[in-house]
């Protein structure tokens, strides 16, 4: 079942088509990666999902119904990239206030805050002020306030920025835990290694349009370049030549070969067997998301997205 469906969302600003006809579906309980270079329209898209902006066109379907910001806000937990806290307010009060704004009752909120503070070892913070916290600590607090009301849909925009590896892992584990309990997580970032590690499904946005949509494995296969690692027992005395492949890189007895069109990996192996070259290792090289990302985005010159005038409609 899909927790969230976007149908042809559009949002035009005076000088930019921030989001230009994006549709996507997110399955309940999945960890979804929203990727894109700076200024691709990720934040605008998220703001429409959270009801901060109204879309110019298109609709947001949350949990099977048309999204209504007034009543559905409690189903969503949003941690924006530009996030902050009241500096002079005590941490416990602050968490309580934010939870109450979401619609929790006071006693409910207190109970949940205690649970999370205990879980993340933050009990001693209750009476401290935010200005006493380090950046990583306030990040942790932000995370707690985002997930406190047990939202069905959790949206995290760059959740690990400023966290040390230990705390990043702690948060990562919590994200897995929440997903297992049935929450859906949208994860917006441009850190590809995290996406590869965490996400089930990704969408790549560029210039306000969706340019890629699929599961991580599927996308990697779609963009594979038919490259294989070949490791031989000895450095061969002959030059490797075959209609089935050509050598892309070589380093002593290690080769990276690229299979030519119309041939299969077994054709490569057959060649080595025929030449009586002993193969120690043979495996396919899948492109990293990072490479895919760079390839796709570079072509569009998105790094210098220019301003244009768009007629208001």
């Amino acid at each position, binding site marked *: 079942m899909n927790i969230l469906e976007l149908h042809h969302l559009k949002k035009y600003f005076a000088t930019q088509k921030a989001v230009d006809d994006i549709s996507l579906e997110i399955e309940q309980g999945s960890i979804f990666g929203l990727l894109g270079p700076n200024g691709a329209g990720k934040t605008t898209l998220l703001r429409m999902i959270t009801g*901060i902006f109204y879309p110019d066109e298109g609709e947001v379907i949350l949990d099977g119904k048309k999204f209504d910001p007034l009543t559905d*806000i409690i189903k969503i937990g*949003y*941690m*924006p990239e530009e*996030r902050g806290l009241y500096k002079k307010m005590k941490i416990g009060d602050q968490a309580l206030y934010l939870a*109450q*704004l979401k619609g929790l009752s006071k006693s409910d909120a207190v109970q949940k805050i205690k649970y999370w503070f205990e879980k993340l070892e933050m009990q001693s913070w209750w009476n401290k002020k935010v200005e006493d916290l380090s950046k990583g600590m306030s990040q942790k607090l932000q995370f707690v306030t985002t997930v406190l009301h047990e939202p069905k849909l959790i949206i995290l925009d760059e959740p690990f920025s400023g966290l040390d590896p230990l705390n990043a892992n702690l948060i990562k584990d919590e994200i897995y835990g929440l997903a297992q309990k049935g929450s859906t997580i949208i994860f917006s970032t441009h850190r590809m290694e995290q996406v590869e590690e965490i996400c089930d499904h990704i969408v790549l946005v560029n210039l306000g349009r969706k340019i890629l949509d699929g599961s991580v494995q599927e996308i990697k296969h779609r963009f594979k370049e038919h490259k294989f690692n070949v490791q031989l027992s000895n450095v061969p005395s002959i030059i490797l030549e075959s209609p089935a492949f050509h050598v892309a890189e070589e380093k002593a007895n290690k080769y990276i070969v690229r299979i030519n069109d119309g041939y299969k990996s077994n054709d490569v192996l057959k060649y080595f067997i025929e030449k009586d070259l002993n193969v120690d290792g043979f495996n396919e090289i899948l492109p990293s998301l990072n490479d895919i990302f760079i390839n796709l985005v570079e072509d569009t010159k998105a790094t210098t997205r220019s301003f244009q005038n768009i007629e*208001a409609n």
Partner: protein
Amino acid sequence: MNKIALIARREFLTRVQKKTFLLTTILLPLLFFGFYAMIIYFSVNSDEKYNIAVADEANVFNNKLEGDENISFSFVKGEDEQSLKQDIEKDKYQGYAIIPANANILDKINISIVTQKSVGLMSRGKIEDKLNAALEQQRLLALNISPAQLDSAKKEGNIQFSTVEGKNDSGEEIGMSYAIGYVSGFLIYIVLFIYGAMVMRGVMEEKVSRIAEVIVSSVKPFQLMMGKILGIGAVGLVQFIIWIILMTSLNFLLPLIFPQLAAQMHDSNMQNGAMQAADTLKNSGLIGNVNINMPLILGCFIFYFIGGYLLYSSLFACVGSAVNEDPQDAQSLMLPITMPIIFGIVIMTKAVNEPTSGLAVFGSLFPLFSPIVMMARIAHGVGDVVPVWQLLTSMGLLIVGFIFTTWFAGKVYRTGILMYGKKPSWKEMWKWAFRRY
């Protein structure tokens, strides 16, 4: 609605629980009165003591000159200027006065007073008063007029002003109305500035600390803005009520603590404006024949206080949402808001004198000025000076006005609060207001 209340509560509590709130609310009036009392105390109770030798060659005073605890007069005979100077150097006297032998009580008398050091303003006044009073008495004696005769000669005619409708139009009432109108208009002017700026700073703080987006993912931007405006408004109301209570109780307490102070203030000739106002108050007497409708004025004051605050604070919020860290940006955007407030106070000073002039009527109807100007007119009486239809129109327009400004500010606010980067112009903000979301 519930969320607005929640936000307003936080805004209210965080401000009221601050130490600075207690400090400004309670200490400020105390400090103010402390200074006031101290200035008066020191200027009245100068510990300068003067014993003045009076060489009354012509015997105009007939050896009668009354002194008090600080000033005393000693009549000396047969001493010339030289010996008196020596006496002063020996600190026997602090000054001397010489009345030439040819002085006549009924003529203008030249009295020159020579003192050790320069005489303070208060003492100088007292010495002059005492000498003049003694001279007056001696003159009356010389002309054979009794004090009772003088009193009856000075008796004033009882002159009454009234309007065609038969309303009492006494000068006392005019003075009273003037004072009430001026003070209440001025108070509202101060309210608009203090609390409007407080709203603006609050919005800026939220924007700079980047909490705005966190909050607007839970509540509508309009709710956030209204919560802030109402919360700070409540702070203002509480602060004002405390101030009014403190000021009035101090006003009553001050004469009790320094009884001689009040007495001296009256017989000293240092009657400044404040005391004159106090005198008008006393003379006209709230309980007396003056027909000023206090409950109506108080009710109107609260209405215009709240209406004016709502009208302007939402505009201040809108400026706060548009600017970034730089307070100078705020200054230039604030100009179009502060201008009408200042115009309002200028019109108010005119309206308090001429409550029926065209400018005053316009000012009291136009919502940007009416909170300040109408108070000055209402004090002169509702029904005759301010027709009821004008009061109702003014109130109606003010309500329409603040609904419009909060709507406008709400639109600008929701865009501005999430917009970082360069400061927008009013033109751009105007566009934000009419953009579709």
